[in-house]
């Protein structure tokens, strides 16, 4: 749920954020705005007068700040520690004000307030001019994608309404803000305490020719380009009231849709047509950004919570690696490599920060090398998700590019993120929806596709047994392919060595190739030492579920050293070959291989027969 759907005026409500530090007069300004719009009810006002005497900092006058500093602890400390929301309306427009603290240790609160704002009022104390905090506030505002700012030069009464002081501040701000990409910057000299240029133009600043603050806020257009952006709808829920109806419910993030339009499920590439659009009160012909609707499609295609329905000619990116800005919000620091939950739209998936490219000093905008991010720090990172996600760059579409990271153990919201771009070239290569499926291909061959992954020490007999298995399968009319470690390293992987990093890449490539071959319906035999459990797990995860059999060809080291068919152990033991498994690199034996073959005890032919029997038993091939 968002704003109320019915508002007093034609213009959409303006959501604004006020930025300023403790003494800039931020809360006073908001209090003043409410007071002058006659929005302080009598009972609140009498409470305010009572409170002003107790906590106030303005002597006998009403302290407007007390009106907005909500929580008791804040009142006692005299600072705003969280985000407070205030609502007011003039005859022309209604406003939602997020009041957030300005101290550096509250960067996260400010980012929170900014995430839902269209405009920011940046307060500057006329006596102090531009401060570090002004730069910080402006940067965070721009980082969160706010394009319109009001530079409110407050306490202008305390510098005798001096036009030069105002002009200097404005000039300095404009020069700094060039790099921040604001569309409009409106400078106004004000006194929040006395009301100059708040609701009405002040005679005391006759040199100022612009409108007073309220008039500016009433008229500013924060262009609504959500409706012009391509159609996007994250699916929140599958609506199935009875067997004859299946619809996909969600709020349209951008663009519009009408009955009969083609849509694509971003992650699967499946295309269908919109058969029905159902709103809260019944069927509609069309719907646009912000509408909460249920779409029924013409075809029965697979759609679940978290999927994104999109315009087929202007699709979102789909990738599992991307670059993003992160604002760290937890007191526990970021650990690259640790698994967090990433929530984007209605989708939640495990994710890790794979590379922290730099930290941004929020005061100077300098890029600094960093290993971690602490509370309130901003960084630019690469992230990887376990499942591909559909997204647009945050700059193009806030709802499609914003995400949060959740700590998997404490459940706290650890970070807010804004996607810059996808990382792999695959990002804009959309998955083709294949008409002939993998199962159809395999069925034609009277078999089920599977990867047989032979692992074991060099000389254990992997290739020998795999060759015998393939010959037997071939004789039975099965369609097969063989990927052998030595052969692959002469072609596909000839650029790779034997360091742990290269070994991981070697297996990743082989796993991908095996996956393509099983997609073709083949039984794929892979023969690789693959000494690390993690790599074999990687290969297993690349395969379709249930289509990967790990076959451990088990022979003790002394047996294989004695066999040494290629003379490699001799050279490795002599130190002529580095990184040799079993000699100076460990072999991690499988803990749960589907098939274990003891090649020191049984002959290769008998072991090959056992593999064939197992394939028949598991119904990958037909029994003879």
């Amino acid at each position, binding site marked *: *749920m*968002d*704003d*109320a*759907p*019915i*508002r*007093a005026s034609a213009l959409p409500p303006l959501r604004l954020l006020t930025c300023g530090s403790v003494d800039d007069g931020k809360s006073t300004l908001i209090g003043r705005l409410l007071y002058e719009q*006659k929005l302080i*009810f*009598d*009972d*609140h006002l009498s409470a305010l007068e009572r409170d002003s005497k107790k906590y106030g900092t303005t002597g006998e006058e009403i302290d407007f700040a007390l009106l*907005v500093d*909500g*929580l*008791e*602890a804040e009142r006692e400390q005299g600072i705003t*520690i*969280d*985000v*407070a*929301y*205030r*609502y007011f*309306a003039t005859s022309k427009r*209604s406003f*939602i004000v997020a009041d957030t603290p300005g101290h550096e240790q509250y960067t*996260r*609160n400010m*980012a*929170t307030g900014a*995430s*839902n704002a269209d405009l920011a009022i940046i307060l500057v104390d006329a006596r102090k001019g531009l401060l570090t905090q002004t730069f910080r506030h402006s940067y965070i505002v721009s980082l969160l994608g706010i394009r319109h700012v009001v530079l409110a030069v407050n306490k202008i009464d305390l510098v005798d309404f001096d036009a030069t002081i105002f002009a200097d501040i404005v000039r300095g701000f404009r020069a700094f803000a060039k790099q921040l990409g604001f569309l409009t910057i409106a400078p106004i000299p004000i006194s929040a305490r006395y009301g100059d240029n708040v609701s009405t133009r002040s005679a005391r600043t006759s040199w100022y020719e612009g409108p007073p603050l309220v008039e500016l806020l009433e008229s500013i257009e924060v262009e609504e380009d959500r409706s012009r952006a391509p159609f996007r709808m994250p699916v929140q829920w599958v*609506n*199935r*009231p009875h067997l004859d*109806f299946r*619809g996909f*419910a969600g*709020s349209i993030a951008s663009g519009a849709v009408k009955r009969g339009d083609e849509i694509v499920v971003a992650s699967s590439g499946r295309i269908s047509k919109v058969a029905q659009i*159902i*709103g*809260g*009160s019944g069927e509609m012909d069309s719907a646009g950004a912000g509408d*909460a609707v*249920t779409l029924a499609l013409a075809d029965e295609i697979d759609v679940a919570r978290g999927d994104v329905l999109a315009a087929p000619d202007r699709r979102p990116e789909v990738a599992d690696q991307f670059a993003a800005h992160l604002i760290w*919000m937890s007191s526990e620091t970021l650990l690259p490599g640790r698994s967090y*939950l990433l*929530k*984007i739209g209605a989708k939640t998936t495990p994710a890790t920060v794979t590379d922290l490219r730099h930290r941004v000093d929020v005061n100077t905008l300098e890029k600094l090398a960093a290993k971690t991010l602490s509370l309130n720090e901003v960084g630019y990172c690469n992230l990887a998700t376990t499942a591909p996600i559909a997204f647009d760059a945050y700059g193009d579409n*806030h*709802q499609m590019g*914003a995400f*949060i990271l*959740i700590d998997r153990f404490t*459940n*706290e*919201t650890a970070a*807010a993120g804004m996607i810059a771009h996808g990382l792999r070239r695959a990002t804009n290569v959309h998955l083709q929806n294949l008409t002939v499926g993998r199962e159809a291909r395999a069925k034609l061959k009277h078999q089920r596709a599977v990867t047989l992954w032979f692992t074991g020490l060099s000389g254990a007999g992997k290739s020998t047994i795999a060759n015998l298995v393939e010959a037997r399968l071939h004789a039975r009319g099965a369609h097969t392919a063989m990927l052998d470690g030595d052969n692959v390293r002469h072609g596909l992987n000839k650029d790779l060595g034997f360091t742990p990093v290269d070994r991981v890449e070697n297996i990743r490539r082989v796993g991908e190739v095996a996956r393509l071959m099983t997609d073709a319906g083949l039984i794929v035999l892979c023969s690789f030492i693959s000494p690390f459990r993690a790599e074999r797990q990687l290969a297993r995860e690349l395969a379709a579920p249930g289509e990967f059999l790990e076959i451990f060809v088990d022979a003790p080291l002394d047996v294989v050293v004695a066999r040494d068919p290629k003379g490699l152990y001799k050279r490795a033991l002599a130190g002529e070959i580095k990184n040799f498994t079993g000699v100076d690199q460990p072999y991690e034996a499988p803990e749960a291989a589907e098939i274990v073959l003891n090649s020191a005890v049984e002959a290769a032919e008998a072991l090959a027969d056992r593999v064939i029997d197992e394939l028949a038993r598991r119904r990958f091939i037909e029994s003879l």
Partner: protein
Amino acid sequence: MLHVALKAFHPAPLPFPLLHVDTTWKFREMIAFRDETARRLNLRLLVHTNQDGLARGVSPIASGSAAHTQVMKTEALRQALDKWKFDAAFGGARRDEEKSRAKERIFSHRSAAHAWDPRNQRPELWRLFNTRIKAGESMRVFPLSNWTELDVWEYVRAEQIPVVPLYFAKERPVVERDGALVMVDDDRLPLLPGERPQMRRVRFRTLGCYPLTGAIESEASTLDDIIDEMRAATTSERQGRLIDHDEQGSMEKKKREGYF
């Protein structure tokens, strides 16, 4: 809020039940409206009363507003949530109602003991709500957080939503107490010496336990009238809620203890 929920799940029926924490001191017309609504819309209505409090004779008359609210509302709500093991409860609270509500999250986390920790709330960015909780913990969810009182009435008018008749002005028997107009809804309200119920044309902006809810004098008998009256209003709706004035920061205290 019920109307919004029905629309959100349409064409499916509402997938969750409705819960009313009945203090036994609600206006009779409220109860009639509650039952009629559940019947008309075919909704599952659960009603819970703190039986222990009832047995101890806790009431707004005998115990005062603070103790009554604590036992019959706050504790009763906790009992009900525990009894049915709900992991989330929707409420219609809005941020414009009261200062401590202005910082309330839309998804507001509660510990296993139903406590609210305003100093340690999850940041809520964009429309990405972190709904994850551990066993025993729960969420209070306030979908109307960003609506104002005027928004609610304009929505009621636009969607023609039925409301409790007490919101419309009518001649009703009231007594004046501490500046508030208290309706004599049944014969449980003891009259003070010299008090005599008078028929006045009044309506309610908010509905709580009847002895704790002040009426306002009003001529507003239609939705249009109510909206016009509200635009000209100079007092807040919770002004009629006597429980908020118990002490400074009293709403925040109640909320920390589990009050909606």
